[in-house]
């Protein structure tokens, strides 16, 4: 347990989600262990008496997330309702507690996986818990930051467009924008394909995943990577961390003759359809933030499917030359497994990529992961530039 709490405390810092020294992580089997001392521990320890949990993370997010979470919590003082795919599917909403007390936090955590709470030393913290592993707290905190980011930038663009952006929002936006890192740098050179052996393919997958995380193109471990080698599709496992894919890749026969890939990514069906229906060998999926923000920015205010964009968008939309399609996670009746492959394989789609509404970007290539990572970076940087252009133009799409 100690190994895990230290691992995820360090990972929160490495991911840029928290400043060094900030994360408090606890794990409980029959005895409670923490990663470090802190005056707020006694109040958090009461949560373990009030809730049937085995782990907890408490941390104030680093900038720009701190500004974003603060603003959203002021604006929505009881609950924040982001509309991105992750929140809709897994978190549902983000409760906000009025005070840093075990009772107030427990009230929210009885129903949800995380709570946003005022921190005794200023600012706001995210407290998230799990019943299996401290990894859950890490994932939920990361998801709150991602969802908050997408909602904050989406709301600001929309409200600017409508002339509704208030002074405090503009101030918060300018502050948060000031903390944005530089645009994503050029992609490093990755292993050259085509890969001819399992070892090469696995190494290339792990390398692509690690760089996707390092470049900030995905939050926590969401996203997936695959490579077709002969009659096998090698794909990252569900819930695997893209920067730790060694030993977490499933070989899945193209003829479905084995179910050993049952633990493969939830997007296995979509990946399979793409490699079966095209020359693509490499597929990389990430959650670049501005790409997700722009995928949700549609100017058709009177669209009859408004509110159902994520599953029933009737238009043929594109962002920065890449098609945008609706679709839920997975292979269900409204799943992206039905919408993504045709969009990527469409004859007029020269990008070899597609964006799933409110979710992320899938990029493909015939040889290796170099072009897929370049595509992801180009699209994200283009979306970021486009976002600020739309904002400068009064928010027009």
């Amino acid at each position: 347990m100690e190994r895990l709490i230290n691992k995820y405390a360090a990972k929160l810092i490495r991911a840029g989600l928290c400043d060094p020294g900030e994360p408090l992580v606890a794990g409980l089997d029959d005895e409670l262990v923490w990663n470090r001392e802190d005056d707020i521990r006694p109040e958090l320890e009461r949560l373990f008496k009030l809730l049937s949990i085995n782990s907890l993370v408490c941390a104030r997010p680093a900038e720009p997330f701190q500004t974003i979470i603060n603003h959203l919590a002021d604006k929505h003082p009881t609950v924040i309702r982001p509309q991105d795919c992750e929140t809709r599917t897994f978190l549902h909403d983000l409760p906000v507690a009025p005070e840093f007390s075990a009772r107030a936090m427990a009230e929210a955590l009885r129903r949800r996986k995380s709570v946003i709470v005022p921190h005794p030393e200023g600012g706001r913290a995210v407290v998230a818990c799990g019943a299996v592993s401290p990894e859950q707290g890490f994932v939920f905190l990361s998801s709150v930051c991602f969802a908050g980011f997408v909602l904050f930038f989406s709301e600001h663009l929309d409200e600017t467009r409508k002339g509704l952006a208030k002074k405090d929002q503009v101030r918060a936006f300018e502050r948060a924008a000031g903390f944005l890192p530089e645009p994503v740098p050029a992609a490093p050179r990755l292993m050259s394909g085509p890969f001819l052996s399992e070892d090469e393919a696995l190494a290339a997958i792990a390398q692509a995943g690690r760089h996707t995380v390092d470049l900030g193109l995905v939050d926590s471990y969401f996203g997936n990577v695959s490579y077709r080698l002969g009659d096998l599709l090698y794909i990252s496992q569900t819930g695997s961390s893209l920067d730790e894919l060694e030993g977490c890749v499933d070989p899945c026969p193209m003829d479905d003759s084995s179910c050993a890939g049952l633990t493969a990514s939830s997007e296995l069906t979509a990946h399979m359809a793409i490699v079966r229906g095209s020359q693509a060998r490499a597929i990389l999926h990430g959650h670049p933030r501005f790409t997700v923000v722009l995928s949700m920015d549609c100017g058709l205010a009177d669209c009859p499917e408004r509110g159902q964009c994520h599953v029933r968008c009737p238009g043929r939309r594109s962002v920065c030359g890449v098609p945008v399609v609706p679709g839920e996670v997975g292979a269900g009746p409204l799943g992206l497994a039905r919408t993504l492959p045709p969009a990527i394989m469409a004859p007029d789609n020269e990008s070899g990529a597609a964006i799933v509404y409110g979710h992320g970007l899938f990029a493909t290539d015939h040889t290796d992961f170099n072009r897929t990572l370049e595509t992801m970076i180009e699209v994200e940087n283009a979306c970021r530039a486009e976002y600020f252009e739309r904002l400068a133009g009064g928010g027009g799409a």
Partner: protein
Amino acid sequence: MNGWTGSILLVDLDRGETGVLRPDRALYAKFLGGRGLAGHFLRPKATLAWDDPETPLLVFTGPLNGTASPTPGRATIMSRSPLTPATACSSVGGRLGRELKNAGWDGLIITGKSARPVGLEIRDREARLVDASMLAGLTTGRIFDRLTASEPKASLAATGPAAENGVLFASIAVDRHHAAGRSGLGLTMAAKGLKYLLILGTGRTEVHDPAMLKQARQDILRLTAASPVLMGGLGLSRYGTPALYDLMHSRRMMPTDNFRHTRFEAAARLNAHALVQRFRPKAAGCAGCHIRCKRVDESGRSLPEFESLSHFTALIGNDDLDAAVAANELCNEYGMDAISAGATLACLLEITGEEVSGARILELLRDTALGRGLGADLGRGSRRLAEYMGWPEKSMSVKGLELPAYDPRGAYGMALALAVATRGGCHLAAYPVSHEILRKPVATDRFSFSGKARMIKIAEDMNAAVDSLPACKFTFFAAGLEEYAKAYTAVTGEPSSAQDLLLAGERVYYNERIMNALNGLTIKDDDLPVRFFEDDGDSGGGVSVKALDRDEFLDARERYCRVRGLDEHGRPTGQTAQRLGLEWND
């Protein structure tokens, strides 16, 4: 009341009379329904013998049966076990829960013993006992043909020849493709002279807030659609539970040759894909289920679940897929638990050293069901068989219940869960396969006991709540009590949260632990067969499958006792019982 009917049907088979019990709403809120309520009503009779006429056979629904809540088709059957000293409890699928609820009953409490075989027929609020003598000796398939021909919408639960012949792991067949399989509940039912239950309900469950229930349903369906295990291209929805077969093989934890090995070389030819190629199955499922994990071939025959497929191949060294399917069918037709049947057969084969053909497997299973020759010994379960033959350590069981198809050396949380489960060697009590193998909600280190004591305790509480609502445990590979609390509140109007349901689940589970203690079970019974601590599994492919470290296991078990609120002997305490609002007598 919304969610519950407020009525429990009392059936006295001694007198041939029925009555109605109308518990307070507070009792429902305290135990939820299903497994919780069944345990509440078993507790006062928990120390009676399994065949004592006063020992009740309990069939219970929960508030979510008969509603639009996802996977609402389960029911609980509970009583004393003839096979084990522990409480016998089975969550069963099919239509039983829905029909009983729609007939206006939250549950049945059946006591007494009929002098001759009878069937209990319930049509809405009307219940009657019917002579069932003419069904003696018929297979369950024939019984289903005969009794449901004129009432195809009715749910039918019946025992088969195995129960008539005293097989200690006899099952109750439900709606042809489902069963209350484990712990020998079929024999308990037969001991009452009760041959079958036929139930037809035309009512409906009143829902407090239909709009809220619709929202909860959408949340749960979205999560299950996102789950590769449930709805993915290789998932349960496409291949049924045999989808797990390749995974257990690749993880080197497939029980082989009575758990002497953890890898079966022929597995790749006997997997879910092979079943599809050979039998072209159709999907089937419980009432109201969208996952539909059952598989039925073109002739309407049930194909094996993962557990029975694994035990009728790897565990007994059989590489004949047709024989495995036939063995499974034979268990269904004669009314026997396929897990215990396969594991008891494997125990015999290890002791005798016999290598069996497909025909011999079927012969031995048929003899078991009919109590003939060696089959009469097999029908007593592996523990009694192994003791009788002088090799007690070759019974791969816990508390006398044979182990399922997950080798504990390949997943340490599973090792602990199998040891401490209240009904014996049961994988479903905590189902740590979810995180140790399937990576949900997150992956844990399967070769470590670190943190597993509390994980197992919380999962046991969760699954006790799930069995009480009820819902299908498979859904919890994707959704959680967070989403189901919303469905529960929407149906009943009771304010609730995931944590409230966990507390109710803890109460349900602890009540079972108290019943086991009343029957003399202690920490010594929470243990695994010695083989797992002495012999390595089959390592290879970068995976090392070592024997379990005894000290680490005992340490984890001690921690479990502390987390669960048990004393150093594994016995419940008055303090914890009081905290949970459970009756306690020193």
